[in-house]
């Protein structure tokens, strides 16, 4: 019996060490990569300019849609803006901008100064709609296909590498 107890204690010790080792080597930054492959449902975004509501049906008309969450008060959004302007030239891609917790006058000023890359513009004044998209900060962008399935998610400002990835995906077929 004593041998059994010793073995159990040794096994428990090894198990605890393995758990620590595994935890120390794990990626600790939160990521929403697991959303890739999920279908976006219950989309209900108010238009920035009028009373129109954007639903998933509207997005099904596009081959690919990049949903970009931005605000005029967000400094990294200014950094990614030139990349969005370049993406706006892609024929297979529509960009839906979601103006996040922003003042309309400031958002319009932002677009007038830096250019408007968005095919459609929606607003989320309270931030509540963004929870449906798994957004936890801005800028964030979600690339979806015409079945509203998430193909890629970008947390933080888009960069040259992201631009290439998006182009590769939308031109793959």
């Amino acid at each position, binding site marked *: 019996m004593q041998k059994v107890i010793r073995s*159990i204690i040794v096994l428990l010790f090894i198990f605890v060490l393995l758990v620590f080792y595994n935890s120390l080597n794990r990626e600790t930054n939160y990521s*929403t990569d697991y959303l890739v492959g999920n279908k976006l449902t219950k989309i209900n975004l108010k238009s920035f300019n009028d009373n129109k509501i954007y639903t998933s049906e509207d997005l099904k008309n596009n081959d690919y849609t990049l949903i970009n969450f931005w605000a005029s008060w967000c400094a990294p959004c200014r950094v990614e803006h030139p990349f969005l302007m370049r993406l706006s030239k892609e024929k297979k891609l529509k960009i839906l901008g979601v103006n996040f917790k922003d003042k309309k006058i400031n958002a319009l000023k932002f677009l007038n100064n830096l250019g408007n890359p968005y095919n459609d513009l929606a607003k989320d004044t309270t*931030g509540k709609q963004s929870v449906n998209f*798994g957004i*936890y900060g801005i800028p964030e962008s979600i690339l979806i296909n015409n079945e509203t399935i998430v193909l890629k998610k970008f947390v933080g400002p888009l960069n040259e590498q992201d631009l290439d990835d998006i182009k590769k995906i939308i031109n793959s077929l």
Partner: protein
Amino acid sequence: MKLKFFLIVFFLNLSINLNSSELVEESKIHKNLRCLVCQGQSIADSNSEFALTLKMVVKDLIDQGKTDDEIYSFLSDKYGDWILYKPKLSPGNFLLWGLPYLVLIIGGVIIVFLIRKSSKKA
């Protein structure tokens, strides 16, 4: 007159109790939701933009009559189990839930064995 006074006090008390139980429920849910942009804080402890938004969403869901489980399930669909401080039992975390009980049983067996051994010696 007395009856009227009694009824007013009764309904006032009832409404206060109902409101406070809703608040308790809401704060219980907040405490189980991780603030993803904070360091080790629940949304109950944080005033970040993300925490404030999530509190509004939780309030809306409660107003819609959703249960705790439905709210947790909705949010873990959007943000993963990481958002829950107390995730549901799943194949990925059964060890997390089962290990304390296993250790308790093994510990109990060891203690019983040691007690028996020492009583035999005595």
